[in-house]
C-alpha cells in the first residue's frame, strides 16, 4: 500500500482476486462487459461552496488529495458508486431492508426483500435488475439464495459454489432467503452467538446498505 504519484494523471489497473480466479478458470467468465465509477476516499464535507475564490475552487480540497493504490480485494473497491440520475434530483436513492440489524436463532429462516426509495420518482420501489447481496461469512447460513432475477448471469452467480478459504458469497435477486446454520462447531466451546454482515447493493441505483447479522446458538 502506498500513495500514488499525483503529479500527472495516470491509471493503475490491476486484476482483483475474483478477476484472477475467473481468468484462471479459462471458461470465458473473464469477459469485461461493463464498468462502474466510484468516488471512494472522497469526503464531500470538504467541498466548500462558500469559497471566496469562486466556484472553480469549491472542490479544490478534494481535487488535490492524494489517492491510495488499487487493492486486489474485490470487496474493498468501488464501495460508493457514482450513479446516473436525472438533473434536479434532490433525494438520493436509499435502500430500505426493513431491518437495521438481523438476529436469527440456529435454523431460523428469513426472507429479505429490499426496497429502493427515492428512485425513479418513486414510481417503483423494486429495482428491475435486482439486488446483489453479499454475506461476509456464508458458513453462518445453511441456506443463502437469491430469487426473482432470472437472467443467465444471475443464475450463474447464484449457482456458484464457495470453495477453499473463501467464506464470502454473493447472490442476486429481488428476494434473498436466509436460513441460519445448525452447525454448532462454528460457535466454538463457549460462544453463544456469531456475527457476520450482509451487504445489499441495488444493481440499478447503486444504493447500498450494510446490516449486521447475529446467529444465536440454541442452548437446549
Amino acid at each position, binding site marked *: 500500500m502506498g500513495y500514488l*504519484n*499525483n503529479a500527472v*494523471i495516470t*491509471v*493503475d*489497473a*490491476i*486484476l482483483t482476486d*475474483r*478477476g484472477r480466479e*475467473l*481468468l484462471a478458470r479459462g471458461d470465458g467468465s473473464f469477459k*469485461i*462487459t*461493463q*464498468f*462502474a*465509477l*466510484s*468516488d*471512494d*476516499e*472522497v*469526503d*464531500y464535507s470538504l*467541498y466548500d461552496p462558500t469559497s471566496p475564490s469562486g466556484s472553480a475552487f469549491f472542490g479544490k480540497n*478534494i*481535487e*488535490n*488529495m*492524494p*489517492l*491510495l493504490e*488499487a*487493492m486486489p480485494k*474485490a470487496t474493498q*473497491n*468501488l464501495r*460508493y458508486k*457514482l*450513479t*446516473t*440520475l436525472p*438533473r*434536479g*434530483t434532490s*433525494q*438520493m436513492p*436509499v435502500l430500505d431492508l426493513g431491518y437495521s440489524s438481523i438476529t436469527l436463532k440456529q435454523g431460523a429462516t428469513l426472507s429479505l426483500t429490499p426496497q429502493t426509495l427515492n428512485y425513479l420518482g418513486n414510481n417503483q420501489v423494486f429495482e428491475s435488475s435486482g439486488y*446483489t447481496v453479499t454475506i461476509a461469512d456464508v458458513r453462518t447460513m445453511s441456506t443463502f439464495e437469491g430469487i426473482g432475477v432470472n437472467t*443467465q*448471469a444471475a443464475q*450463474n*452467480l447464484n449457482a456458484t459454489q464457495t470453495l477453499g478459504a473463501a467464506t464470502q458469497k*454473493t447472490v442476486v435477486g429481488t428476494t434473498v432467503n436466509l436460513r441460519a446454520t445448525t452447525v454448532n462447531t462454528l460457535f466454538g466451546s463457549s460462544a453463544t452467538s456469531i456475527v457476520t454482515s450482509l451487504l445489499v447493493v*441495488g*444493481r*440499478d*441505483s447503486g444504493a*447500498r446498505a450494510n446490516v449486521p447479522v447475529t446467529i444465536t446458538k440454541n442452548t437446549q
Partner: protein
Amino acid sequence: MSFKRLEPEDFLISTDAIVAPAFAGGSSNPTQGGTAANSGISLDYFTAFNGTDGRGELSIATGVKTGPVSGSQAVYRQFANLIQGNADADLAVGTTFQAVVIDRQRFKQSILPSTFRCGSIGGVAPNPTHVATGSTDVTFTDAGRQFKNSANSLFLYPDIGVALISGGGSSSPGTYTPANITADSEEVITSNYVFIRARNAEFNYSQNPTFIDSTTGGVRYTDFITAPQTFITTVGLYNDSGDLLAVAKLSKPLKKDFTKEALIRIKLDF
C-alpha cells in the same frame, strides 16, 4: 444506473516491446563486482550468484566436441542438440567454445541482440565483441534466431539467452569479469486497453454517504440539486455477472458534472 455497458470499440489490444537492462539492480552488466562460483557439479560449469537479489544471473560452461568423455563433451552435445537439432552435428562456432548462459528471468523473452557485448570469458576473447544485427545478418536455427560477429568467433542465440564464444576448451571456464558482458532483455507485452467514456449526463450523483445529508436523505448541498459534482477516483471493470474483474485508480480525483465528459484509458497487462 451505476453500470454502463462497454461497446466493442471501447476495447483495443496492443502489443509493445519492452526493453530493459537485463541484470539485477537495473544494470546491463551481471553481478556487479562478483565472481563466478563453482556450481559444485563439475569444473566445466560456473554460475554467478552474486546478484543483488541473490539469484544466479548467468552461467558459464565449456564445450568440447572431441576427446575423452567429459562434462565438456556433454555441454557441447547439449548445445548441438538445442541449436542444430542433432547432438552429433558440428556447431558453427567450432569444436570448442565457452558458453554464456543467461538466467531466464534476466533475459525474459529474449536478449536484444544489438545491446549484447561479450569480452573475454574463460580466457577467450571474441573480436569484435558484438554481433552484426543488420536485416540480413540473422539466420534461423532450432534454437531460434542466430547472430554472429564478423570473425565467426561469437554467436548469439537471443531467444534462448545463450552466447557461444569460439575457443578455450581444455580447461575450466576460468576467469569471469562482470563488465565483459552487457545485455538488455526484451519482451513483448500484450496489453488490453479499455476506454471508459462517461457522458456529460452520466455519473453526476454519488452513493457516497458524505454526498448525502444524513438528516434529510437529500443531497448535501443545495447547489448539488441542479449542478451536482462528483469526483471520480476509481474505475471498476465488470463481467455480466457483476463480478469486479479489474480495478483502476486515478492518481488524483477527476471532477465530473453535467458540463464535463470524461474519457479514461485503462491499461490491463497480462
